[in-house]
Protein backbone atom coordinates (compact mmCIF):
# COMPACT_ATOMS: atom_id res chain seq x y z
CA UNK A 1 0.00 0.00 0.00
CA UNK A 2 2.43 2.60 -1.14
CA UNK A 3 1.27 6.17 -1.18
CA UNK A 4 -0.65 6.99 -4.30
CA UNK A 5 0.35 10.16 -6.14
CA UNK A 6 -2.19 11.57 -8.52
CA UNK A 7 -0.50 10.63 -11.72
CA UNK A 8 -3.26 11.99 -13.82
CA UNK A 9 -2.73 15.63 -13.02
CA UNK A 10 0.80 15.50 -14.28
CA UNK A 11 0.33 13.57 -17.45
CA UNK A 12 -3.04 14.48 -18.84
CA UNK A 13 -2.57 17.27 -21.36
CA UNK A 14 -6.25 17.94 -21.89
CA UNK A 15 -7.39 18.36 -18.35
CA UNK A 16 -4.40 20.08 -16.79
CA UNK A 17 -4.95 23.57 -18.14
CA UNK A 18 -8.47 23.88 -16.76
CA UNK A 19 -8.90 21.31 -14.00
CA UNK A 20 -12.06 22.80 -12.59
CA UNK A 21 -13.46 24.90 -15.38
CA UNK A 22 -16.80 23.98 -16.86
CA UNK A 23 -16.56 22.37 -20.27
CA UNK A 24 -17.13 24.95 -23.02
CA UNK A 25 -20.65 24.04 -23.98
CA UNK A 26 -21.87 23.73 -20.43
CA UNK A 27 -22.53 20.04 -20.88
CA UNK A 28 -20.69 17.87 -18.45
CA UNK A 29 -19.86 14.48 -19.81
CA UNK A 30 -18.42 11.47 -18.09
CA UNK A 31 -15.35 11.39 -20.19
CA UNK A 32 -14.73 15.08 -19.64
CA UNK A 33 -14.59 14.94 -15.84
CA UNK A 34 -11.42 16.42 -14.48
CA UNK A 35 -8.97 14.31 -12.54
CA UNK A 36 -9.96 16.23 -9.49
CA UNK A 37 -13.67 15.52 -9.74
CA UNK A 38 -13.52 12.05 -11.22
CA UNK A 39 -12.94 10.19 -7.92
CA UNK A 40 -16.01 11.84 -6.40
CA UNK A 41 -18.11 10.83 -9.39
CA UNK A 42 -16.71 7.31 -9.07
CA UNK A 43 -17.66 6.88 -5.41
CA UNK A 44 -21.02 8.66 -5.80
CA UNK A 45 -23.24 5.61 -6.50
CA UNK A 46 -21.80 3.61 -3.61
CA UNK A 47 -22.03 6.66 -1.36
CA UNK A 48 -25.69 7.33 -2.22
CA UNK A 49 -26.64 3.72 -1.45
CA UNK A 50 -24.66 3.76 1.76
CA UNK A 51 -26.44 6.91 2.94
CA UNK A 52 -29.91 5.76 1.88
CA UNK A 53 -29.81 2.14 3.06
CA UNK A 54 -27.26 2.22 5.89
CA UNK A 55 -26.85 5.64 7.45
CA UNK A 56 -30.30 7.25 7.29
CA UNK A 57 -32.13 4.08 8.43
CA UNK A 58 -29.61 3.60 11.25
CA UNK A 59 -30.37 7.12 12.42
CA UNK A 60 -34.07 6.38 12.11
CA UNK A 61 -33.51 3.20 14.14
CA UNK A 62 -32.04 5.22 16.98
CA UNK A 63 -35.10 7.50 16.82
CA UNK A 64 -37.45 4.49 16.87
CA UNK A 65 -35.81 3.22 20.04
CA UNK A 66 -37.30 6.24 21.85
CA UNK A 67 -40.78 5.55 20.53
CA UNK A 68 -43.61 3.45 21.86
CA UNK A 69 -44.05 1.33 18.76
CA UNK A 70 -46.14 -1.81 19.29
CA UNK A 71 -49.23 -3.55 17.95
CA UNK A 72 -51.50 -0.64 18.91
CA UNK A 73 -49.32 2.13 17.50
CA UNK A 74 -47.94 0.20 14.53
CA UNK A 75 -50.25 1.86 12.01
CA UNK A 76 -48.74 5.24 12.89
CA UNK A 77 -45.32 4.00 11.70
CA UNK A 78 -42.75 6.72 12.34
CA UNK A 79 -45.35 8.95 14.02
CA UNK A 80 -45.79 6.60 16.97
CA UNK A 81 -45.79 8.39 20.35
CA UNK A 82 -42.52 9.20 22.09
CA UNK A 83 -41.69 7.23 25.18
CA UNK A 84 -38.30 8.69 26.09
CA UNK A 85 -35.98 6.13 27.60
CA UNK A 86 -38.91 3.83 28.34
CA UNK A 87 -37.72 1.00 26.10
CA UNK A 88 -34.22 1.13 27.57
CA UNK A 89 -35.63 1.34 31.05
CA UNK A 90 -37.70 -1.80 30.48
CA UNK A 91 -34.74 -3.70 29.06
CA UNK A 92 -32.17 -2.71 31.62
CA UNK A 93 -33.84 -1.82 34.91
CA UNK A 94 -37.39 -3.16 35.31
CA UNK A 95 -36.76 -6.24 37.43
CA UNK A 96 -40.20 -7.78 36.94
CA UNK A 97 -40.43 -7.14 33.19
CA UNK A 98 -40.20 -10.36 31.17
CA UNK A 99 -38.58 -8.34 28.38
CA UNK A 100 -35.66 -7.68 30.68
CA UNK A 101 -35.05 -11.32 31.59
CA UNK A 102 -35.40 -12.27 27.93
CA UNK A 103 -32.83 -9.66 27.00
CA UNK A 104 -30.41 -10.68 29.74
CA UNK A 105 -30.65 -14.34 28.72
CA UNK A 106 -30.13 -13.59 25.04
CA UNK A 107 -27.22 -11.25 25.78
CA UNK A 108 -25.45 -13.86 27.91
CA UNK A 109 -26.11 -16.58 25.30
CA UNK A 110 -24.70 -14.31 22.62
CA UNK A 111 -21.54 -13.70 24.65
CA UNK A 112 -21.06 -17.46 25.08
CA UNK A 113 -21.93 -18.24 21.49
CA UNK A 114 -19.54 -15.58 20.20
CA UNK A 115 -16.64 -16.57 22.44
CA UNK A 116 -16.96 -20.27 21.64
CA UNK A 117 -17.50 -19.75 17.92
CA UNK A 118 -14.65 -17.31 17.42
CA UNK A 119 -12.22 -19.35 19.52
CA UNK A 120 -13.17 -22.57 17.73
CA UNK A 121 -13.04 -20.99 14.29
CA UNK A 122 -9.64 -19.33 14.75
CA UNK A 123 -8.11 -22.31 16.56
CA UNK A 124 -9.45 -24.85 14.09
CA UNK A 125 -8.60 -22.66 11.11
CA UNK A 126 -5.03 -22.18 12.27
CA UNK A 127 -4.54 -25.88 13.04
CA UNK A 128 -5.81 -26.94 9.62
CA UNK A 129 -3.78 -24.23 7.89
CA UNK A 130 -0.64 -25.60 9.57
CA UNK A 131 -1.52 -29.11 8.38
CA UNK A 132 -2.14 -27.96 4.82
CA UNK A 133 0.99 -25.81 4.80
CA UNK A 134 3.11 -28.97 4.93
CA UNK A 135 4.30 -30.48 1.67
CA UNK A 136 2.33 -33.57 0.84
CA UNK A 137 0.82 -35.41 -2.08
CA UNK A 138 -2.59 -34.09 -3.09
CA UNK A 139 -1.99 -30.80 -1.28
CA UNK A 140 -3.82 -28.68 -3.86
CA UNK A 141 -6.85 -30.95 -3.89
CA UNK A 142 -7.02 -31.03 -0.09
CA UNK A 143 -6.78 -27.25 0.12
CA UNK A 144 -9.58 -26.78 -2.41
CA UNK A 145 -11.93 -29.34 -0.89
CA UNK A 146 -11.34 -27.92 2.58
CA UNK A 147 -13.12 -24.72 1.46
CA UNK A 148 -16.40 -26.52 0.77
CA UNK A 149 -18.13 -25.93 4.15
CA UNK A 150 -17.70 -22.18 3.69
CA UNK A 151 -19.54 -22.31 0.34
CA UNK A 152 -22.54 -24.18 1.73
CA UNK A 153 -25.15 -21.48 2.51
CA UNK A 154 -25.74 -21.05 6.23
CA UNK A 155 -29.43 -21.96 5.95
CA UNK A 156 -28.41 -25.27 4.38
CA UNK A 157 -25.83 -25.71 7.14
CA UNK A 158 -28.64 -25.26 9.66
CA UNK A 159 -30.88 -27.73 7.85
CA UNK A 160 -28.33 -30.53 7.51
CA UNK A 161 -27.04 -30.14 11.06
CA UNK A 162 -30.58 -30.05 12.42
CA UNK A 163 -31.11 -33.41 10.78
CA UNK A 164 -27.81 -34.75 12.09
CA UNK A 165 -28.62 -33.57 15.65
CA UNK A 166 -31.97 -35.43 15.77
CA UNK A 167 -32.03 -37.39 18.97
CA UNK A 168 -33.33 -40.74 17.72
CA UNK A 169 -32.48 -40.93 14.00
CA UNK A 170 -29.70 -38.35 13.72
CA UNK A 171 -26.31 -39.61 12.60
CA UNK A 172 -24.49 -37.92 15.50
CA UNK A 173 -26.33 -39.86 18.17
CA UNK A 174 -26.10 -42.98 16.03
CA UNK A 175 -22.32 -42.62 16.03
CA UNK A 176 -22.04 -41.63 19.68
CA UNK A 177 -24.43 -44.26 21.02
CA UNK A 178 -25.09 -47.08 18.55
CA UNK A 179 -21.83 -47.40 16.63
CA UNK A 180 -19.16 -46.52 19.20
CA UNK A 181 -20.92 -46.61 22.56
CA UNK A 182 -19.16 -43.43 23.74
CA UNK A 183 -22.43 -42.44 25.42
CA UNK A 184 -24.95 -44.82 26.93
CA UNK A 185 -27.94 -42.50 26.53
CA UNK A 186 -29.20 -40.40 23.62
CA UNK A 187 -28.68 -36.71 24.36
CA UNK A 188 -31.27 -34.17 23.18
CA UNK A 189 -29.38 -31.62 21.12
CA UNK A 190 -32.01 -29.25 19.81
CA UNK A 191 -33.62 -28.42 23.15
CA UNK A 192 -32.31 -27.56 26.58
CA UNK A 193 -28.72 -26.94 27.65
CA UNK A 194 -27.16 -28.72 24.65
CA UNK A 195 -28.89 -26.46 22.14
CA UNK A 196 -26.20 -23.77 22.40
CA UNK A 197 -23.68 -26.36 21.23
CA UNK A 198 -26.08 -27.36 18.47
CA UNK A 199 -25.62 -23.88 16.96
CA UNK A 200 -21.99 -23.29 18.00
CA UNK A 201 -20.53 -26.40 16.35
CA UNK A 202 -22.06 -25.85 12.87
CA UNK A 203 -21.01 -22.19 13.08
CA UNK A 204 -17.42 -23.20 13.78
CA UNK A 205 -17.59 -25.81 11.05
CA UNK A 206 -18.72 -23.24 8.51
CA UNK A 207 -16.25 -20.59 9.71
CA UNK A 208 -13.10 -22.73 9.75
CA UNK A 209 -12.41 -22.82 5.99
CA UNK A 210 -12.30 -19.04 5.65
CA UNK A 211 -10.01 -18.64 8.67
CA UNK A 212 -7.88 -21.46 7.27
CA UNK A 213 -7.65 -19.72 3.90
CA UNK A 214 -6.38 -16.49 5.47
CA UNK A 215 -3.92 -18.26 7.78
CA UNK A 216 -2.63 -20.37 4.92
CA UNK A 217 -2.01 -17.29 2.77
CA UNK A 218 -0.13 -15.66 5.63
CA UNK A 219 1.94 -18.80 6.28
CA UNK A 220 2.87 -18.99 2.62
CA UNK A 221 4.03 -15.41 2.55
CA UNK A 222 6.29 -15.89 5.59
CA UNK A 223 10.00 -15.88 4.86
CA UNK A 224 11.51 -19.35 5.40
CA UNK A 225 14.83 -17.97 6.64
CA UNK A 226 13.58 -17.29 10.16
CA UNK A 227 12.37 -20.83 10.68
CA UNK A 228 15.50 -22.30 9.12
CA UNK A 229 17.79 -20.20 11.29
CA UNK A 230 15.86 -21.15 14.41
CA UNK A 231 15.96 -24.83 13.43
CA UNK A 232 19.74 -24.64 13.05
CA UNK A 233 19.93 -23.07 16.49
CA UNK A 234 18.11 -26.13 17.82
CA UNK A 235 14.57 -24.84 18.24
CA UNK A 236 11.99 -27.62 17.86
CA UNK A 237 8.76 -27.24 15.87
CA UNK A 238 6.74 -26.21 18.92
CA UNK A 239 9.17 -23.51 19.94
CA UNK A 240 9.40 -22.26 16.36
CA UNK A 241 5.61 -22.04 16.23
CA UNK A 242 5.41 -20.26 19.58
CA UNK A 243 8.20 -17.75 19.01
CA UNK A 244 8.21 -17.18 15.26
CA UNK A 245 4.96 -18.23 13.54
CA UNK A 246 2.53 -16.99 16.17
CA UNK A 247 4.04 -13.49 16.58
CA UNK A 248 4.10 -13.07 12.80
CA UNK A 249 0.42 -14.06 12.63
CA UNK A 250 -0.63 -11.61 15.35
CA UNK A 251 -1.90 -8.86 13.03
CA UNK A 252 -3.96 -11.37 11.06
CA UNK A 253 -5.33 -12.95 14.25
CA UNK A 254 -6.24 -9.45 15.43
CA UNK A 255 -8.21 -8.66 12.28
CA UNK A 256 -10.00 -12.00 12.36
CA UNK A 257 -10.89 -11.51 16.02
CA UNK A 258 -12.36 -8.10 15.26
CA UNK A 259 -14.62 -9.23 12.43
CA UNK A 260 -15.24 -12.71 13.85
CA UNK A 261 -16.75 -11.30 17.04
CA UNK A 262 -18.92 -8.81 15.15
CA UNK A 263 -20.09 -11.43 12.67
CA UNK A 264 -20.90 -13.96 15.42
CA UNK A 265 -22.65 -11.45 17.64
CA UNK A 266 -24.97 -10.71 14.70
CA UNK A 267 -25.61 -14.37 13.86
CA UNK A 268 -29.20 -15.03 12.90
CA UNK A 269 -29.63 -17.56 10.10
CA UNK A 270 -28.31 -20.69 11.83
CA UNK A 271 -30.35 -20.50 15.07
CA UNK A 272 -33.41 -19.21 13.18
CA UNK A 273 -33.52 -22.01 10.61
CA UNK A 274 -32.40 -24.76 12.98
CA UNK A 275 -34.44 -23.88 16.06
CA UNK A 276 -37.22 -21.63 14.76
CA UNK A 277 -38.38 -18.16 15.79
CA UNK A 278 -38.03 -19.02 19.46
CA UNK A 279 -34.91 -21.09 20.09
CA UNK A 280 -35.66 -21.23 23.82
CA UNK A 281 -33.77 -19.72 26.77
CA UNK A 282 -30.66 -21.81 26.18
CA UNK A 283 -29.95 -20.79 22.60
CA UNK A 284 -31.80 -17.51 22.08
CA UNK A 285 -29.33 -14.99 20.64
CA UNK A 286 -29.62 -11.21 20.40
CA UNK A 287 -30.70 -11.27 16.78
CA UNK A 288 -33.30 -14.00 17.18
CA UNK A 289 -34.69 -12.13 20.19
CA UNK A 290 -34.82 -8.79 18.34
CA UNK A 291 -36.48 -10.29 15.27
CA UNK A 292 -38.99 -12.30 17.30
CA UNK A 293 -40.02 -9.36 19.50
CA UNK A 294 -40.12 -6.95 16.54
CA UNK A 295 -41.93 -9.06 13.98
CA UNK A 296 -43.80 -11.81 15.84
CA UNK A 297 -44.80 -9.66 18.82
CA UNK A 298 -44.78 -6.28 17.05
CA UNK A 299 -42.59 -4.73 19.76
CA UNK A 300 -40.59 -2.66 17.31
CA UNK A 301 -39.62 -0.04 19.88
CA UNK A 302 -38.11 -2.76 22.03
CA UNK A 303 -36.36 -4.23 18.98
CA UNK A 304 -34.87 -0.87 18.06
CA UNK A 305 -33.65 -0.22 21.61
CA UNK A 306 -32.13 -3.69 21.85
CA UNK A 307 -30.44 -3.10 18.48
CA UNK A 308 -28.95 0.16 19.72
CA UNK A 309 -27.61 -1.61 22.82
CA UNK A 310 -26.15 -4.37 20.66
CA UNK A 311 -24.51 -1.78 18.42
CA UNK A 312 -23.10 0.07 21.43
CA UNK A 313 -21.73 -3.22 22.76
CA UNK A 314 -19.92 -3.69 19.45
CA UNK A 315 -18.52 -0.14 19.64
CA UNK A 316 -17.14 -1.01 23.06
CA UNK A 317 -15.67 -4.20 21.62
CA UNK A 318 -13.99 -2.24 18.81
CA UNK A 319 -12.52 0.19 21.35
CA UNK A 320 -11.22 -2.64 23.53
CA UNK A 321 -9.86 -4.39 20.46
CA UNK A 322 -8.15 -1.23 19.27
CA UNK A 323 -6.50 -0.66 22.62
CA UNK A 324 -5.25 -4.25 22.71
CA UNK A 325 -3.95 -4.52 19.16
CA UNK A 326 -3.03 -0.93 18.23
CA UNK A 327 0.67 -1.76 18.20
CA UNK A 328 0.22 -4.72 15.85
CA UNK A 329 -1.65 -2.55 13.39
CA UNK A 330 1.06 0.08 13.32
CA UNK A 331 3.76 -2.52 12.76
CA UNK A 332 2.01 -4.01 9.78
CA UNK A 333 1.52 -0.73 7.96
Amino acid at each position, binding site marked *: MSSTPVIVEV*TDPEVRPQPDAEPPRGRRRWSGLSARRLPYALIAPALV*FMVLIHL*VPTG*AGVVLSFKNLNTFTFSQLFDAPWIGFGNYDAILFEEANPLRSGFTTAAWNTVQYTALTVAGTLGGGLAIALLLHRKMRGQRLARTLMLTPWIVPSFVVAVVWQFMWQSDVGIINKILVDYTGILDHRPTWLLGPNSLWAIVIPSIWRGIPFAMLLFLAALQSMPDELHEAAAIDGAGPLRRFRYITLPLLRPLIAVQLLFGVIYSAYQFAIPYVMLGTNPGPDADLMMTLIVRQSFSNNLLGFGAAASVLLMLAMFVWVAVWYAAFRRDLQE*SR
Partner: protein
Amino acid sequence: MSYATRRRLGNLALDVLTWVVLLVMLAPVLWLIASSLQTTGRLSSGAYDLLDPTFEAFSRMWSSVDFGKYFVNSLIICTAAAVIATGFAASAGYALARYRFRGAGAFGTALIGTQLIPGSMFLLPLFLGFIWLKQNTPIALLDTHIGMILVYTAFFTPLAIFFMRSFFQAIPRELEEAALVDGCTPFGAFWRVVLPNAAPGLLATFVYAFLFAWDELLFAAALTQSRAETIPIGIRNFVGNYSEEYAQLMAAGVVSTIPVLVAFFATQRWLVKGLTAGAVKG
Protein backbone atom coordinates in the same frame (compact mmCIF):
# COMPACT_ATOMS: atom_id res chain seq x y z
CA MET B 1 14.61 -46.22 15.21
CA SER B 2 16.82 -43.83 13.36
CA TYR B 3 16.08 -40.12 13.18
CA ALA B 4 15.20 -40.38 9.47
CA THR B 5 12.69 -43.19 10.05
CA ARG B 6 11.08 -41.40 12.92
CA ARG B 7 10.81 -38.29 10.82
CA ARG B 8 9.25 -40.17 7.92
CA LEU B 9 6.74 -41.89 10.21
CA GLY B 10 5.86 -38.56 11.79
CA ASN B 11 5.28 -37.05 8.36
CA LEU B 12 3.14 -39.97 7.32
CA ALA B 13 1.06 -39.65 10.49
CA LEU B 14 0.50 -35.96 9.77
CA ASP B 15 -0.47 -36.74 6.16
CA VAL B 16 -3.02 -39.25 7.39
CA LEU B 17 -4.28 -36.78 9.99
CA THR B 18 -4.74 -34.15 7.26
CA TRP B 19 -6.90 -36.46 5.17
CA VAL B 20 -8.91 -37.58 8.20
CA VAL B 21 -9.57 -33.95 9.14
CA LEU B 22 -10.61 -33.24 5.56
CA LEU B 23 -13.00 -36.18 5.63
CA VAL B 24 -14.53 -34.99 8.91
CA MET B 25 -14.94 -31.48 7.47
CA LEU B 26 -16.60 -32.85 4.36
CA ALA B 27 -18.76 -35.37 6.23
CA PRO B 28 -21.78 -33.10 6.77
CA VAL B 29 -21.80 -32.19 3.06
CA LEU B 30 -21.51 -35.84 2.06
CA TRP B 31 -24.25 -36.66 4.54
CA LEU B 32 -26.45 -33.96 3.01
CA ILE B 33 -26.01 -35.49 -0.44
CA ALA B 34 -26.43 -39.07 0.77
CA SER B 35 -29.63 -38.25 2.68
CA SER B 36 -31.10 -36.40 -0.28
CA LEU B 37 -30.85 -39.67 -2.22
CA GLN B 38 -32.90 -41.65 0.30
CA THR B 39 -36.63 -41.85 0.88
CA THR B 40 -38.12 -40.01 3.83
CA GLY B 41 -39.37 -43.30 5.21
CA ARG B 42 -35.83 -44.65 5.46
CA LEU B 43 -34.48 -41.45 6.96
CA SER B 44 -37.09 -41.24 9.69
CA SER B 45 -36.68 -44.86 10.66
CA GLY B 46 -32.92 -44.49 10.65
CA ALA B 47 -32.53 -47.40 8.21
CA TYR B 48 -30.38 -45.75 5.55
CA ASP B 49 -29.34 -47.73 2.52
CA LEU B 50 -26.58 -45.73 0.87
CA LEU B 51 -26.16 -48.31 -1.89
CA ASP B 52 -29.70 -47.83 -3.09
CA PRO B 53 -30.04 -44.15 -4.03
CA THR B 54 -33.25 -42.67 -5.39
CA PHE B 55 -33.97 -39.28 -6.92
CA GLU B 56 -37.53 -39.33 -5.66
CA ALA B 57 -36.98 -36.45 -3.24
CA PHE B 58 -35.53 -34.26 -5.99
CA SER B 59 -38.64 -34.62 -8.10
CA ARG B 60 -41.09 -34.18 -5.22
CA MET B 61 -39.49 -31.18 -3.51
CA TRP B 62 -40.71 -28.77 -6.21
CA SER B 63 -44.36 -29.43 -5.40
CA SER B 64 -44.31 -29.66 -1.57
CA VAL B 65 -43.43 -26.01 -1.27
CA ASP B 66 -43.22 -23.82 -4.35
CA PHE B 67 -39.47 -24.23 -4.50
CA GLY B 68 -39.25 -23.18 -8.14
CA LYS B 69 -40.60 -19.75 -7.25
CA TYR B 70 -38.05 -19.28 -4.45
CA PHE B 71 -35.25 -20.44 -6.71
CA VAL B 72 -36.15 -18.02 -9.51
CA ASN B 73 -36.59 -15.16 -7.04
CA SER B 74 -33.16 -15.86 -5.55
CA LEU B 75 -31.56 -16.02 -8.99
CA ILE B 76 -33.10 -12.72 -10.11
CA ILE B 77 -32.47 -10.79 -6.90
CA CYS B 78 -28.96 -12.09 -6.23
CA THR B 79 -27.76 -11.77 -9.84
CA ALA B 80 -29.08 -8.23 -10.23
CA ALA B 81 -27.76 -7.11 -6.84
CA ALA B 82 -24.36 -8.68 -7.44
CA VAL B 83 -24.05 -7.09 -10.90
CA ILE B 84 -24.95 -3.61 -9.61
CA ALA B 85 -22.76 -3.99 -6.52
CA THR B 86 -19.84 -5.05 -8.71
CA GLY B 87 -20.35 -2.00 -10.93
CA PHE B 88 -20.44 0.35 -7.93
CA ALA B 89 -17.47 -1.44 -6.41
CA ALA B 90 -15.46 -1.21 -9.60
CA SER B 91 -15.86 2.54 -9.84
CA ALA B 92 -15.45 3.29 -6.12
CA GLY B 93 -12.66 0.74 -5.75
CA TYR B 94 -10.81 2.35 -8.64
CA ALA B 95 -11.13 5.78 -7.03
CA LEU B 96 -9.71 4.42 -3.76
CA ALA B 97 -6.92 2.50 -5.48
CA ARG B 98 -5.64 5.25 -7.78
CA TYR B 99 -6.66 8.66 -6.51
CA ARG B 100 -5.88 10.57 -3.38
CA PHE B 101 -8.81 12.82 -2.74
CA ARG B 102 -10.16 14.69 0.21
CA GLY B 103 -12.58 12.44 2.08
CA ALA B 104 -11.09 9.19 0.79
CA GLY B 105 -10.10 8.17 4.32
CA ALA B 106 -13.51 9.06 5.73
CA PHE B 107 -15.23 7.17 2.93
CA GLY B 108 -13.13 4.06 3.59
CA THR B 109 -13.82 4.25 7.33
CA ALA B 110 -17.54 4.67 6.70
CA LEU B 111 -17.49 1.59 4.47
CA ILE B 112 -16.00 -0.48 7.27
CA GLY B 113 -18.36 1.24 9.69
CA THR B 114 -21.38 -0.10 7.83
CA GLN B 115 -20.19 -3.59 8.76
CA LEU B 116 -20.36 -2.65 12.44
CA ILE B 117 -24.08 -1.90 12.43
CA PRO B 118 -26.34 -4.80 13.40
CA GLY B 119 -28.74 -5.62 10.56
CA SER B 120 -31.78 -5.13 12.79
CA MET B 121 -30.67 -1.53 13.39
CA PHE B 122 -31.57 -0.49 9.86
CA LEU B 123 -33.94 -3.35 9.11
CA LEU B 124 -36.73 -2.00 11.32
CA PRO B 125 -36.71 1.53 9.81
CA LEU B 126 -36.41 0.08 6.29
CA PHE B 127 -39.38 -2.18 7.01
CA LEU B 128 -41.46 0.75 8.26
CA GLY B 129 -40.20 2.95 5.42
CA PHE B 130 -41.17 0.36 2.81
CA ILE B 131 -44.65 0.12 4.35
CA TRP B 132 -44.92 3.92 4.39
CA LEU B 133 -43.92 4.10 0.72
CA LYS B 134 -46.49 1.47 -0.12
CA GLN B 135 -49.27 3.35 1.65
CA ASN B 136 -48.42 6.85 0.53
CA THR B 137 -46.69 6.56 -2.85
CA PRO B 138 -46.83 4.32 -5.90
CA ILE B 139 -43.28 3.11 -5.11
CA ALA B 140 -43.49 -0.62 -4.38
CA LEU B 141 -40.46 -1.87 -2.47
CA LEU B 142 -42.01 -4.19 0.12
CA ASP B 143 -42.10 -7.77 -1.15
CA THR B 144 -40.77 -6.84 -4.60
CA HIS B 145 -37.65 -7.82 -6.49
CA ILE B 146 -36.64 -4.17 -6.82
CA GLY B 147 -36.82 -3.60 -3.08
CA MET B 148 -34.65 -6.62 -2.32
CA ILE B 149 -32.20 -5.74 -5.09
CA LEU B 150 -31.75 -2.22 -3.70
CA VAL B 151 -31.16 -3.51 -0.18
CA TYR B 152 -28.74 -6.25 -1.23
CA THR B 153 -26.83 -3.90 -3.50
CA ALA B 154 -26.25 -1.54 -0.60
CA PHE B 155 -25.28 -4.41 1.67
CA PHE B 156 -22.64 -6.07 -0.37
CA THR B 157 -21.14 -3.00 -2.04
CA PRO B 158 -18.84 -1.99 0.87
CA LEU B 159 -16.90 -5.26 1.02
CA ALA B 160 -16.95 -5.55 -2.77
CA ILE B 161 -15.24 -2.15 -2.95
CA PHE B 162 -12.27 -3.38 -0.93
CA PHE B 163 -12.23 -6.49 -3.06
CA MET B 164 -12.06 -4.49 -6.30
CA ARG B 165 -9.52 -2.09 -4.84
CA SER B 166 -7.07 -4.90 -4.23
CA PHE B 167 -7.48 -6.07 -7.83
CA PHE B 168 -6.87 -2.55 -9.18
CA GLN B 169 -3.82 -2.16 -6.99
CA ALA B 170 -2.35 -5.24 -8.66
CA ILE B 171 -2.69 -3.67 -12.14
CA PRO B 172 0.45 -1.82 -13.19
CA ARG B 173 0.10 1.94 -13.23
CA GLU B 174 2.01 2.17 -16.52
CA LEU B 175 -1.12 0.96 -18.29
CA GLU B 176 -3.03 4.14 -17.51
CA GLU B 177 -0.01 6.35 -17.99
CA ALA B 178 0.35 5.05 -21.51
CA ALA B 179 -3.36 5.58 -22.18
CA LEU B 180 -3.20 9.14 -20.90
CA VAL B 181 -0.18 9.93 -23.02
CA ASP B 182 -2.12 8.61 -26.00
CA GLY B 183 -4.82 11.17 -25.29
CA CYS B 184 -7.33 9.28 -23.17
CA THR B 185 -9.29 11.23 -20.56
CA PRO B 186 -8.91 10.00 -16.97
CA PHE B 187 -12.30 8.36 -17.21
CA GLY B 188 -11.44 6.93 -20.62
CA ALA B 189 -8.31 5.37 -19.17
CA PHE B 190 -10.38 3.71 -16.47
CA TRP B 191 -13.22 2.66 -18.76
CA ARG B 192 -11.36 1.48 -21.83
CA VAL B 193 -7.99 0.39 -20.50
CA VAL B 194 -8.08 -0.55 -16.82
CA LEU B 195 -11.51 -2.13 -16.62
CA PRO B 196 -10.97 -4.73 -19.38
CA ASN B 197 -7.74 -5.70 -17.64
CA ALA B 198 -9.60 -6.14 -14.39
CA ALA B 199 -12.06 -8.66 -15.87
CA PRO B 200 -11.05 -11.53 -13.54
CA GLY B 201 -11.41 -9.17 -10.59
CA LEU B 202 -14.86 -8.12 -11.75
CA LEU B 203 -15.91 -11.74 -12.09
CA ALA B 204 -14.51 -12.64 -8.67
CA THR B 205 -16.23 -9.64 -7.07
CA PHE B 206 -19.51 -10.60 -8.71
CA VAL B 207 -19.27 -14.16 -7.37
CA TYR B 208 -18.30 -12.89 -3.95
CA ALA B 209 -21.32 -10.57 -3.77
CA PHE B 210 -23.54 -13.31 -5.19
CA LEU B 211 -22.42 -15.81 -2.53
CA PHE B 212 -23.32 -13.39 0.25
CA ALA B 213 -26.62 -12.36 -1.30
CA TRP B 214 -27.57 -16.01 -1.77
CA ASP B 215 -26.95 -16.58 1.94
CA GLU B 216 -28.94 -13.58 3.21
CA LEU B 217 -31.91 -14.46 5.37
CA LEU B 218 -32.71 -11.72 7.89
CA PHE B 219 -33.84 -9.03 5.44
CA ALA B 220 -35.53 -11.52 3.15
CA ALA B 221 -37.53 -12.78 6.14
CA ALA B 222 -38.75 -9.31 7.06
CA LEU B 223 -39.09 -7.54 3.72
CA THR B 224 -40.74 -10.26 1.62
CA GLN B 225 -44.15 -11.80 2.15
CA SER B 226 -45.29 -13.93 -0.73
CA ARG B 227 -44.08 -12.68 -4.10
CA ALA B 228 -40.36 -12.00 -3.65
CA GLU B 229 -39.45 -14.70 -1.13
CA THR B 230 -36.01 -16.21 -1.66
CA ILE B 231 -34.62 -19.71 -1.12
CA PRO B 232 -33.72 -19.35 2.59
CA ILE B 233 -37.32 -18.34 3.28
CA GLY B 234 -38.52 -21.32 1.26
CA ILE B 235 -36.26 -23.62 3.27
CA ARG B 236 -37.54 -22.07 6.48
CA ASN B 237 -41.15 -22.63 5.36
CA PHE B 238 -40.20 -26.18 4.51
CA VAL B 239 -38.76 -26.75 7.99
CA GLY B 240 -41.85 -25.18 9.51
CA ASN B 241 -44.46 -27.12 7.55
CA TYR B 242 -42.85 -30.36 6.40
CA SER B 243 -40.25 -30.91 9.10
CA GLU B 244 -40.69 -34.68 8.83
CA GLU B 245 -39.98 -34.69 5.06
CA TYR B 246 -36.23 -34.98 5.61
CA ALA B 247 -35.34 -36.33 2.19
CA GLN B 248 -37.02 -33.46 0.36
CA LEU B 249 -35.49 -30.96 2.74
CA MET B 250 -32.03 -32.38 2.07
CA ALA B 251 -32.72 -32.37 -1.66
CA ALA B 252 -33.73 -28.72 -1.42
CA GLY B 253 -30.48 -28.10 0.46
CA VAL B 254 -28.46 -29.75 -2.30
CA VAL B 255 -30.27 -27.82 -5.03
CA SER B 256 -29.72 -24.49 -3.28
CA THR B 257 -26.04 -25.22 -2.74
CA ILE B 258 -25.24 -26.18 -6.34
CA PRO B 259 -25.33 -22.67 -7.91
CA VAL B 260 -22.94 -21.17 -5.37
CA LEU B 261 -20.69 -24.21 -5.39
CA VAL B 262 -20.36 -24.09 -9.17
CA ALA B 263 -19.82 -20.32 -9.16
CA PHE B 264 -17.18 -20.61 -6.49
CA PHE B 265 -15.14 -23.40 -7.97
CA ALA B 266 -15.33 -21.90 -11.47
CA THR B 267 -13.79 -18.64 -10.24
CA GLN B 268 -11.82 -19.98 -7.32
CA ARG B 269 -8.41 -18.85 -8.63
CA TRP B 270 -9.29 -15.16 -8.63
CA LEU B 271 -11.69 -15.29 -5.74
CA VAL B 272 -9.06 -16.67 -3.38
CA LYS B 273 -6.65 -13.98 -4.54
CA GLY B 274 -9.16 -11.29 -3.62
CA LEU B 275 -10.10 -12.87 -0.31
CA THR B 276 -6.53 -13.26 0.87
CA ALA B 277 -5.20 -9.94 -0.46
CA GLY B 278 -5.50 -8.37 2.97
CA ALA B 279 -4.01 -11.31 4.83
CA VAL B 280 -0.77 -11.38 2.89
CA LYS B 281 -0.15 -7.67 3.12
CA GLY B 282 -1.06 -7.71 6.80
